[in-house]
């Protein structure tokens, strides 16, 4: 089963890195979508099916917190798993997001296998299992 992934980050280089990491992790990716903030993410969701959202916290226009609150208001979008990819891992900052329904978080800096482990845990089957493929990849 291929999964559609939405990456939300105001840094183009970080979006490129996350995308690359997903590829080398061996996920069965259907479509990639990218947004530079929460507003762009919502616009993408209006017209596309997304299976998982990887989002930054601090973004202009609409940040990660506002995005999650908007998702929670929607009958369908509230069921899309959201994983935060953030420089902030302090419990006081992360816990409110987990209480809002965010599934998990990944702190930058991260290793490819960390993303793979988290998404495998959330999306379940369909992931590549060759960990050596990640270790040997010079991304």
């Amino acid at each position, binding site marked *: 089963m291929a999964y559609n992934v939405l990456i939300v980050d105001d*840094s*183009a*280089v*970080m979006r*490129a*890195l996350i995308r*690359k990491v997903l590829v080398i992790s061996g996920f069965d990716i259907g479509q990639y979508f990218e947004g530079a903030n929460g507003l762009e993410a919502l616009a993408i969701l209006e017209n596309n099916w997304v299976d998982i959202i990887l989002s930054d916290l*601090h973004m*202009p226009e609409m940040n990660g917190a506002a995005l999650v609150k908007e998702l929670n208001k929607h009958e369908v979008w509230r069921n899309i798993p959201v994983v935060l990819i*953030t*420089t*902030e*891992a*302090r419990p*006081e*900052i992360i816990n409110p997001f987990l209480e809002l329904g965010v599934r998990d978080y990944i*702190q*930058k*800096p*991260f*290793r490819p296998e960390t993303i793979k482990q988290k998404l495998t845990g959330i999306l379940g089957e369909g992931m590549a299992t060759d960990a050596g493929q990640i270790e040997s990849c*010079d*991304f």
Partner: protein
Amino acid sequence: MLAKLRAATFEVLETMFFLFPEGLEEDELMPARGPFLCSWVSIIGPQSLRLGMIVPESLARKMAANFLGISEPEVKQPELEDILKETTNMMAGSFLSKLEASSAFQLQTPHARWLSPGEEKPKGPAKRLRFDVDEELLELFVERES
């Protein structure tokens, strides 16, 4: 505090860039040729700080190439600034985590700019850490923000 910043630097450079820095002593000379790129991020809180980094373009290019998995000539100029901003942001986040700083300390948006000749030389009361990264100089600074 500097020990935590040093640890954050190692963590970010090793994990995201496959670069292995070596700390330099204060009086240890390390030749560096510009132009130099500076990035910084403010940490607003009970004691507001600014954490920043200065690197020569050649090291910024190497970092960007390693980060994006492309060759150095393929790196575009704006990507150098973006990568350095991300790096500073990650270092600041890791630094705050290691300090177990409360949520009263908030990371702000990172910035980057190219320095004018001579501007890279240390001045002011900032605390500094210097590293040898693949025979290139990387300098970190932390200063109080008014």
